[in-house]
């Protein structure tokens, strides 16, 4: 049982505010048509997370530290700076998610952002880590239940769900492909890669935990996409099938979708949807700043991995608090229309970074001197590179379309 955790929490955290927004929009705009993408991203997610976990098991080091040792300080600095910029954007998106969720519940959006910021800062700087972990898992379970029930309440067409899951639908319209790329891109992220590896390494798991860790990662990846599936079908049934149009370019899109559930699935579904969004944003708010600060400290040799007090670890806590507070102020001051630009920029940086991260990960994992018996075998290597290639192509597509739309 001790092994279970890293993959699971990573899976929960993958469905943060950005993820839920993307899935909701996908379901509301394209109905059941994009479900097959979930199956593919599920497979790719499993393999990328597996490699990350294996790196952690074999080396006992996080990704940022390994890149620094093996590829030098410039690559490490590039990776960290890009990750920090992208993550700052993600954190803004988490705040937007909190805001959208509380708006649906009938409170002003700034209240949600403010409370979330305060709770996260207090939790991360004052809380004991055991608690933080339990809270993350509890919040993740809460998100899962919320979306499971919303999906049931929306009475989706389960037969169509099953067939759409396995039969890919290839359309020629470009908006459809942007949604495909966005769905994969929100699931497989640079910070997710850094997160799983640091988590495994810091939990001091070792080569003997390989089997357990693979199960954990598989379970986490499955869960990520099952939740995504519930969100997509809920929106497909209640919004797409009811022909309700949603302004998908608004940061409040997910709020509109939640409200659109009401006529068909009832007010309960709307509230559950909002609660799920709030919980997921909150989880992202906890995990993303933590991973960012951790990676930066690891690469530059600042105070990581120790139970330092606040005063003893100024860089770590400073970075973490900076992220949360900066993003919170940003969200309160910047008009909603510009918000979507910020999130788009973050997505572009993430897209640019992901291929680099995956190539690092794949190359490190096939280094026998570093990995020993955990070196990627021929099959894993082949599958990994195919997945990496696929993501590189998808990233390029998203990059090009983002520039076109910006």
């Amino acid at each position: 049982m001790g092994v279970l955790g890293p993959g699971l929490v990573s899976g929960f955290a993958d469905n943060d505010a950005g993820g839920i927004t993307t899935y909701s929009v996908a379901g509301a705009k394209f109905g059941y048509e994009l479900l097959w993408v979930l199956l593919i991203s599920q497979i790719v997610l499993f393999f990328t997370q597996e490699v990350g976990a294996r790196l952690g098991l074999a080396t006992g080091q996080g990704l940022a530290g390994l890149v620094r040792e093996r590829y030098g300080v410039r690559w490490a600095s590039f990776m960290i700076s890009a990750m920090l910029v992208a993550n700052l954007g993600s954190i803004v998106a988490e705040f937007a998610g909190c805001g959208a969720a509380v708006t649906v519940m009938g409170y002003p959006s700034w209240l949600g952002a403010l409370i979330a910021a305060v709770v996260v800062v207090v939790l991360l700087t004052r809380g004991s880590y055991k608690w933080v972990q339990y809270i993350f898992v509890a919040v993740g379970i809460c998100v899962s239940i919320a979306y499971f029930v919303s999906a049931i309440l929306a009475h989706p067409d389960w037969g169509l769900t099953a067939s759409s899951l396995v039969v890919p639908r290839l359309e020629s319209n470009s908006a459809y492909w942007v949604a495909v790329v966005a769905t994969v891109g929100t699931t497989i992220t640079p910070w997710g890669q850094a997160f799983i590896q640091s988590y495994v390494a810091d939990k001091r798991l070792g080569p003997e935990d390989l089997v357990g860790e693979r199960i954990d990662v598989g379970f986490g990846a499955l869960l990520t996409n099952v939740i995504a599936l519930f969100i997509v079908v809920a929106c497909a049934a209640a919004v797409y099938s009811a022909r309700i149009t949603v302004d998908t370019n608004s940061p409040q899109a997910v709020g509109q979708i939640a409200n659109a559930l009401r006529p068909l699935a009832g007010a309960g579904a709307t509230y559950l949807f909002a609660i799920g969004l709030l919980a997921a944003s909150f989880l992202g708010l906890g995990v993303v700043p933590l991973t960012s600060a951790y990676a930066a400290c690891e690469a530059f040799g600042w105070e990581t991995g120790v139970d330092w007090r606040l005063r003893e670890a100024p860089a770590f806590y400073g970075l973490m608090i900076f992220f949360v507070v900066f993003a919170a102020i940003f969200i309160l001051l910047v008009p909603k229309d510009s918000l979507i630009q910020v999130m788009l920029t973050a997505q572009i940086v993430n897209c640019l970074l992901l291929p680099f991260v995956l190539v690092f990960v794949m190359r490190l994992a096939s280094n026998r001197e570093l990995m020993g018996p955990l070196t990627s075998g021929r099959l894993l290597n082949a599958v990994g590179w195919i997945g990496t290639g696929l993501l590189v192509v998808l990233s390029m597509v998203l990059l090009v379309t983002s520039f076109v739309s910006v």
Partner: protein
Amino acid sequence: MLYLSQAIGRPVRDKLGEPIGTVADLIVAIGDRYPPVTGIVVKTNGREIFLQWQAVASLDAAGATLQTTAIDISKFHQRPNEIRLKRDLMDRQIVDIDGRKVVRVNDLRLDEVDGALHLVAVDVGASGLLRRLGIEGPWRTLAHGFHRDVPERYIDWEDVDPLERTIASVKLRVPHKGLAELHPADLATIMDQLSRNDRVGLISSLDDEAAADAIGEMEPETQVDILEDLEPERAADILEEMDPDEAADLVADLSDESRVEILGLMEKDEADEVQELMTYGEDTAGGIMTTEFVAVPASLTAAQTIDRLRELEPDAETIYYVYVTDDDGKLVGVLSLRDLIVAKPSTCIATFMYGEPVVVHTDAGQEEVTDIVARYNLLAVPVVDADGRLEGIVTVDDAIDTLLPHPARIRIPRLFGRGSGAPDR
């Protein structure tokens, strides 16, 4: 003075100034206080050649110049105590012994000592990082504009301990001399920051007693992790050196498999003691007591008792109290060290011992023990069984542990490290 980063990639010229390649790495022999540079690795036509340091006439930020025109590569053999600076140390983690933490090498500082180039310090500051990124100059100008300094931080090579993993490629045994001299609590702090492999490597280099002391200072989960990673024989040796109460707590947390194996490898006396202590509930006086105390029969004189103390002292956890027991092992009195010393050497201890000592029972709760220790201002309280036989003592440090919230400090920067791992594995 020269930084390694300033030399790497610079041209290497022969005696006549003809370029023959670039500086790829420097080789030093470790073991001395400041490791001397013993060789240079030159990259030429896509391959690396090794040259003895004697072949080098000069090395600075402009590059290296050789003594000769012809390159003789046949003589070089990398000796077992030699490491390559760039490959084995640059960007790697090392232990800053004075600061008690693990830091990353930003750059390496070389200096002339007694006419030869030596590795003298490790650059772990922001200036080193900026230099490596090639933006030290502009940054300094910028910082100067804001009247700020760029923080520089160097650690003398003497206060540095490279880790096993770092230089595993050269199969070098790191003596960890500096680390072995640290206080066990500081060693535990450092150990806490290391990855599993590094931790095991470090423990392997310590003697049993130092290892036991350091492990004794760690969190229970970390203790279990380390012990299970060690060879069972070594784990047994280290447990024998620990205080039995600590050892018992630790053994109780091991997996069933390791527990049986390790207990079987311990000396019988020690193993029995540990097993007996494990039978008591964790939160009772029996669970927190130690069996290493000094007990003497009432018939001794003060002088004989002091002699006995000298014999027993090395193992006992505290000697400030000497307990007096009868033939059945029942506690009949207690003496303080002070009583013993001020008494006339020939006096029988029965005449001046305190005949009604404060005791706790083995099944007394932890809070009760703490309460008694505090109320009577004791350094240790004896623990007796239902028949009044002396089973052990609880020292004040173990008693007050319960008063402190455990853990007593905020901990976060470890991503989920603690608490979720070992015990239920």
